[in-house]
């Protein structure tokens, strides 16, 4: 039963990792950009949530109403003002610029909020749980998992059912021809980053409710998200959810064996899958 419980908790944790990963996956899918600052942007969203909840007394989940559009705006501005200049054949400019951004973000957060660990207070939600045939599920992890499914379903819908999604795919396929069709790729990329950071806002708030955070924890979130993307297969959002779940389960099962092995087990699961299935479990596009 303990093992089953570990698997269940890992599955729910996977929802959070899928939320970390969804933004990365979207950005890579549309513009082949890998954003090293992605984890720090998740942490930024958590801090924005902190400021909103402390300032207004709103519940963290209600703070999403403000944090999601704020992160969306930051994403659009960041893409048009900075990241669009790095898009091209060479992978070094985006890598270095987002690395620089990561250093800037981390230290700005350090300046603004100090290194003290913070947490978002979600009240009774944090401890509430339901029992199901001897297994106990926290309401918060369950809610996180359901939100992850909802977010991925929403992204999938935007991608395959709307004019915006059509434009994303067209620009991803062939930037020049898309331009000939009147699509301004700078604007489209801006919208893609806005959407990715809106998802990041959700991820950041849920992270902040679940655990304490400080300015330095972004790097690990980037890695979890990255691993979920690769395990699931590039360009497949449902695969990313599966990747998040596999990573989450590996971590909780690892922690069950020895508490020190939690993160290690997750990384090893990633490396094993990379060795056996280099394109991930459900690949859609080639990297």
């Amino acid at each position, binding site marked *: 039963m303990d093992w089953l419980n570990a698997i269940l908790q890992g599955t729910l944790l996977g929802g959070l990792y899928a939320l970390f990963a969804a933004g990365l996956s979207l950005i890579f899918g549309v513009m082949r*950009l*890998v954003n*090293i600052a992605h984890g720090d942007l998740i942490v930024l969203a958590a801090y924005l949530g902190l400021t909103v909840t402390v300032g207004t007394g709103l519940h963290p989940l209600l703070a999403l109403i403000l944090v999601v559009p704020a992160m969306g705006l930051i994403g659009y501005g960041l893409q048009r003002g*900075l990241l669009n*200049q*790095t898009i091209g054949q060479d*992978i*070094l*400019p*985006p*890598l*270095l*610029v987002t*690395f*620089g*951004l*990561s*250093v*800037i973000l*981390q*230290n*700005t957060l*350090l*300046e603004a909020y100090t290194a003290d660990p913070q947490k978002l207070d979600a009240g009774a939600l944090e401890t509430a749980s339901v029992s199901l045939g001897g297994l106990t599920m926290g309401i918060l992890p369950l809610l996180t998992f359901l939100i992850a499914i909802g977010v991925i379903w929403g992204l999938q819908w935007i991608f395959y059912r709307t004019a915006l999604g059509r434009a994303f795919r067209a620009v991803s396929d062939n930037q020049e021809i898309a331009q000939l069709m009147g699509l301004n790729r700078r604007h489209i990329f801006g919208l893609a980053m806005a959407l990715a950071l809106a998802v990041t806002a959700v991820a950041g708030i849920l992270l902040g409710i679940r655990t304490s955070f400080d300015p330095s924890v972004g*790097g*690990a979130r*980037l*890695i979890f998200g*990255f*691993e979920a993307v*690769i395990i699931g297969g590039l360009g497949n959002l449902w695969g990313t959810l599966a990747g998040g779940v596999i990573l989450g389960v590996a971590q909780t099962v690892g922690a069950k064996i020895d508490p*020190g*092995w939690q*993160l*290690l087990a997750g*990384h*090893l699961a*990633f*490396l094993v899958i*990379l*060795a056996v299935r*280099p394109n991930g479990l459900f690949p859609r596009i080639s*990297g």
Partner: protein
Amino acid sequence: MNIQDYTVSRSTRAARVALVVTALLLVILFLAPWWAGRADMRLMGELFLYLALASLWNLMAGYAGLVSVGQQAYVGFGGYMLFASTIFLGINPLVAIVFAGFLAALVSVPVAILMFRLRGAYFAIGTWVVAEVFRLCFAQVSSLGGGSGTSLPVGIVKSLASERAMREALSYWLALGAAVIVIAAVYLFLRSRQGLALTAIRDNELAAGSLGIDIWRNKFIVYVVTSALTAMVGALIFLQKLRITPDAAFSVYDWTAFVIFIVVIGGIGTIEGPIIGTLVFFALRETLADLGTVYLIVLGFVAIVIMLRAPRGIWGLVRSRYDLEFFPLSYRVHLKAAKGQDGN
């Protein structure tokens, strides 16, 4: 004019002058224990080790196109191997440095085989994951202090040299030696056949492949060699610090982000670039260090601005203006002056 009227050489006047200046400079630097203060020597030692790391990363990314953000794996591995082999096996620290490099080469083989499955930026983050695995593994080793790390026992420190001044001088010379050896090795490597193949791969992977250059093998060799040398530099870094923790040993910021900034600011894909970048990095650090986090924010901005406005770095700007090359890699065609006249 005939083909005999031309000579092809790599040597330039600037390069010959630079050679003399470099030799003089090396002598002066070698004598630092007799003219520099302890704090200055420590700082210069650190500078040389960063210079070595930057030159190695530059070889990998700037020439072999392997943009790794996980070289902290080998810095930390080297540091830990130094501690482990001196503490557990009683190996002399100087021998342990070489031993650490050898072990890193062995470890880097399976890592390369696995990581080379990832392309571009995904290779980059994949190497970061490997570094995290290293960090978490060493944090599990309780005999090396687990997550809180360990110090180098006094006996081992003393085995280097009994006197403190001598130890500090030795540590400085090792750092200087590491920088000189790494730069010389990178230079000679790039002048060799292998280096030529590498440049071809960087310039055009498809064409190089069709010319029969084994791209995978060339990249693999570079990865293994740089990993081994990076581990040796790592061993030196922690021999200087005398204390190691998993977080310090495998810090992505200290051993990769700053190193990348150095290379890009100085000029990627040139031997001179990392040298200039290291000097700029330390100049910035020493003038802005009092500002704490603001210094890092400034550093981030500088790196971004250079990448966007001058992607060839400071050395690239200098070179495009003055056509200088202190470490000549490119061939130049010279018209023989004497023969050029008799045609008229």
